[in-house]
């Protein structure tokens, strides 16, 4: 079966969506967002580390 083909299923006509293309875009968006999220969490961790040393050593 190919993307976009109209086919019958027990008399009901339906159109197969281009699932592969949608899947690729979804994966890229999820992958890119998870990398951004990971980097932001890493920055938050570095801020905490720095804050601990700054407030302990400056006081």
């Amino acid at each position, binding site marked *: 079966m190919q993307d976009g083909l109209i086919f019958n299923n027990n008399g009901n006509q339906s159109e197969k969506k281009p699932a592969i293309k949608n*899947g690729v875009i*979804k*994966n*890229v968006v*999820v*992958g*890119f967002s*998870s*990398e*951004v999220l*990971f*980097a*932001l969490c*890493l*920055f938050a*961790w*570095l*801020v905490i*580390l*720095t*804050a*601990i*040393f*700054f*407030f*302990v*050593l*400056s006081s």
Partner: protein
Amino acid sequence: MLRKLTKFDFKITMYYTGKIILGLAFTMVIPLIIALIYKEFDSAMDFIIGILSSVIFGLACMKFMKTDKPPNLFQSMIIAAFSWIFACAFCSIPYYLSGHFESYLDVYFDLMSAFTTTGLALIKNVDHVSNALNMWRHMLTYIGGQGIVVLALAFLIRNTGGAYKIMVGEAKDESLEPSITKTAQNIWIISLVSLFVGTTMAAIAAYYDGLSWDRSILHGSWMFMSAWSTGGFAPCTQNLSFYHSYAFEIIMCLYMVMGSFNFALHYVVWKGNPKELLRNIEIKTFVVTLSITTIFVAWGLSAAGIFTNLNSVLRRGILLVISAHTGTGQMAVYANQLVHSWQPLAYMGICIAMMLGGSAASTAGGFKALRIGIFFKGLIHETKRLILPESAVFKMTFHHIKDQIIESGMVKMAGLIILCYCFIYLFGTVVGVACGYPLGQATFESISAGANVGLTMGVVSPSMPAILKITYIITMWLGRLEFLSIFVLVGSVGLAIGQAFKGGRK
């Protein structure tokens, strides 16, 4: 018996080098368009000359050195190392004609710095460089980051059995797909998608902070290319400080970190497996070493009381740690501040971060997190072997894309490459000290060049001795191609000269 250079080796090397130069000639069209849009006709002429020279050389090599045979591993190593020398020579034409450099050596230094994504610059009056030349400088770091051989593989070299070997020669030895052309194309798809998103984010931040819309787009794209390819060039002398924008700095840090990730990791995560980020040995190693170096810098700066508030420590200190560890070299502090104000512990933290670098098969330089991870796991393995009874059977694994068993060959190779990096750091330092620079500055600058970082304490300038410029050019080149392909090239040329000398005496 040692492999000797033959006429066919030379022919196949020139054939593929011609293809790579031809590929680079096409990329010069983009700065040419920028020059025409901004009516920079002098720059436009420089690029036309550059394009014509590269096309003539590329076509001549492809016509007169034509071969259908794929290169073997030996030839591939030579092609990778050789093509970088020629690429620098041809891409330097618009640089040289621009009049922003004191000598051709300075031009070649800047070119090698761009291609190796180092970011050390000898360009004069950078604030008044044309938009076209600025675009070309940043494009070169972007192309260099992905690998110029990868560029040629993705678009020019097809159905080549030996293509993978050339890519290995360029230290991009991760195969994302069974087809090497597809692998190269995927590396470029990842980079181009990031270019679009990153430029948009940076341009919005720059526009919000007061730049006109067209300058926002230009500066956004330049600074993105500089961060993603862990290059470190900037269109202004003040580098990141020019923008005075928290948002802009966070976006740059984000792309420095993402740019230092392995392309294979990007590919797996973008294929729908984000959990790989939490399991990968490179990411785990990177988080640990980044945390340790952050502690050094935070401790050093806080104890010295240089900055009175946390905000300054983060924007000056921690940004610099991220920039150093990812091998980027974008700075929000001045070289003079580093020399005179920074406490030794903070200085040491930055040096260690530069030495370690980002991930393998990424745009970053340095030891690489994969090697550090494997090396330490290997050490633990050997210690266990000595402690446990001789009859005990155990194996050590690591996770990088898939679970892999650590073999002694892997640990040995990782150790060897780390040793080679230490040697070039030491070599650069010795030459720097011999040229009269203080030990601290010479060490910092040598690590920065060898690990392809680009942070500077002021040693790198047009007035530094020619011998030091040549030393840094060699260490940048060695560091980027990770030694092996250059050793093969130098060994083969040495052998050929030896043969010719012997022949002459007979």
